[in-house]
């Protein structure tokens, strides 16, 4: 006698019985769909954010800023210090040109699309060498800004999220109209949320005396770091890009994962109770059928497995529904968040396979936990008493 045959027969009966319990079954499906939709969309945000931040980083690229300043924005470097740093050993040199870009980063308030309130977009003043330091930056429309002029180019992500950043338009910065002359992409990294202009034009507009940070490509990170950190006059910090962005994204990552797992977890507990309620009701409604099957000779294990399968099936249906909703509504959408240096980082929500599988695993866990106790109750139905109780 085959337990598998028994299991298939009982599960088949349970599933045929589902239309009669459509209301209570939908409670489980919709409850789990809600859990999975929230989980997947927030995890997709976290994934998109991590991907955006991670794709900014190259291991042979470093950020150099004033010691203790934590980020580019709160740093400052004098022109003299910048000159010393750029000529330091360890920085990659190409045709006598050190691949190091001294930069000034300022905030420009720009209204978001569909929103009256503005948000800070980073305007990064760069040297021409910046495009050799960041070869991923590519002009996709318009032209490059001219050195010394009030012109800028806008990242693709910033242009999508903010108003008035199309090529040909002008933007007021410090009382002066700056022309938007181009639009660039940088492979989906954080710089796509920025605007780029000539560093001297930015320094002049903001009446700065120096730069804020230097981004450089390195041939020998240790040598550069040792040289720069052993010079007490400079008082600077040298950080590889991946370490820098990991630190910058930690807070946002923590918030997103908190929302995904804690809020998702609380919702999942609710869904488990819904599943428990539904499956207890299903077992209760089928007590006589279960007792009859047990009287005929069906074993308790196929009964347990069939109840669990039904619960799992309902939860996975909910999981697929939630995943579909998250995918249709959110996948590929761009959202922005406040980075830790008070700039907006625009990143895509990417509902990828890993996130979908995580959502479905959660759905399966809800189904199994919600089904196990009713299944055990079904297996323990006292057969003789249940048959007599009809």
């Amino acid at each position: 006698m085959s337990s598998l045959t028994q299991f298939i027969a009982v599960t088949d009966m349970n599933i045929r019985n589902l239309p009669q319990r459509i209301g209570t079954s939908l409670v489980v499906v919709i409850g789990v769909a809600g859990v999975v939709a929230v989980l997947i969309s927030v995890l997709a945000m976290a994934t998109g954010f991590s991907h955006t931040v991670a794709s900014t980083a190259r291991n042979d690229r470093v950020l150099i800023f004033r010691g203790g300043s934590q980020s580019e924005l709160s740093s400052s470097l004098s022109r003299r210090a910048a000159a010393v740093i750029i000529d330091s050993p360890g920085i990659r040199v190409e045709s006598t040109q050190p691949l190091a870009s001294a930069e000034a980063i300022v905030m420009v308030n720009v209204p978001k699309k569909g929103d009256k309130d503005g948000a800070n977009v980073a305007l990064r003043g760069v040297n021409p060498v910046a495009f050799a330091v960041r070869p991923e930056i590519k002009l996709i429309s318009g032209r490059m800004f001219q050195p010394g002029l009030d012109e800028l180019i806008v990242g693709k992500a910033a242009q999508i999220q903010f108003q008035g950043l199309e090529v040909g338009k002008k933007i007021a910065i410090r009382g002066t109209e700056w022309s938007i002359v181009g639009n660039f992409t940088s492979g989906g990294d954080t710089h796509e949320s920025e605007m780029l202009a000539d560093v001297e034009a930015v320094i002049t507009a903001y009446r700065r005396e120096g730069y804020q940070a230097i981004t450089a490509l390195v041939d020998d990170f240790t040598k550069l770091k040792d040289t720069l950190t052993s010079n007490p006059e400079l008082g600077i910090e040298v950080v590889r890009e991946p370490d820098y962005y990991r630190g910058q994204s930690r807070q946002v990552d923590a918030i997103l994962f908190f929302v995904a797992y804690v809020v998702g977890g609380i919702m999942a507990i609710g869904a488990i109770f819904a599943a428990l309620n539904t499956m207890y009701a299903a077992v209760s409604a089928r007590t006589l059928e279960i007792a009859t099957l047990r009287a005929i000779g069906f074993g308790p294990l196929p009964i347990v497995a069939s109840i669990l399968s039904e619960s799992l099936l309902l939860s996975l249906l909910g999981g697929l529904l939630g995943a579909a909703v998250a995918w249709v509504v959110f996948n590929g959408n761009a959202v922005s968040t406040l980075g830790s240096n008070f700039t907006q980082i625009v990143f895509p929500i990417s509902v990828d396979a890993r996130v979908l599988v995580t959502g479905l695993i959660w759905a399966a866990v809800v189904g199994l936990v919600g089904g196990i106790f009713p299944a055990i109750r079904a297996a323990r139905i006292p057969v003789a008493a249940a048959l007599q109780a009809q």
Partner: protein
Amino acid sequence: MSVVSLRNVVKHYTRGKERVEVLHSINLDIAPGEFLALMGPSGSGKTTLLNLIGGLDRPSAGEVTVGGERVDALSGGQLSKWRARHVGFIFQFYNLMPMLSAERNVELPLLLTPLNSAQRMSNVAAALELVGLADRAKHKPGELSGGQQQRVAIARALISDPTLLVCDEPTGDLDRETAEEIMGLLQMLNKQQGKTIIMVTHDPKAAAYASRQVHMDKGRLVEGEARTAAA
């Protein structure tokens, strides 16, 4: 040689601190091919006794032997398998699976055997033919009359050729005419196929179809006289 033998069978339940005696030292032998009607007032213990013989319950004390096997000594899992091989149940309210067709209901006990699908369906067709429902194989219980549903239940009970047919008020939910048809069918199975049948009933007319009537009262057997079956 008995096919069913009960020796000093006692059954009691504990309800809170109270001990409820249901069966008192029952001794009973049922011969192969016998059609036994178990009668008595409500609460006399006849269904409890039927459950012990059918392996749905175990005695508090005493021995229940069916086909030479000590049923009271079997574990829960062993009892399930034993029931599948040796007992066909017929219930008052038929206990068919409402979502399955008549043939799928009848097939259920065969799912516990090594028969393949074609063999199962062949046996199902023969069983439905025997109970006169070959043309209702695809109907669901809700589409059948009470008498037809009980015939499906009888086919289900017969399908795996069990040692015993155990019937609990098989005509209790049927009108007189249909009840007589069902009793006629059971009698035919007893006489022509040699099935041993043990039937609990309140109905003297149904009991008249049995070859022996046994009366119970307050958990004790009051053996009735052996009778010839009703015509």
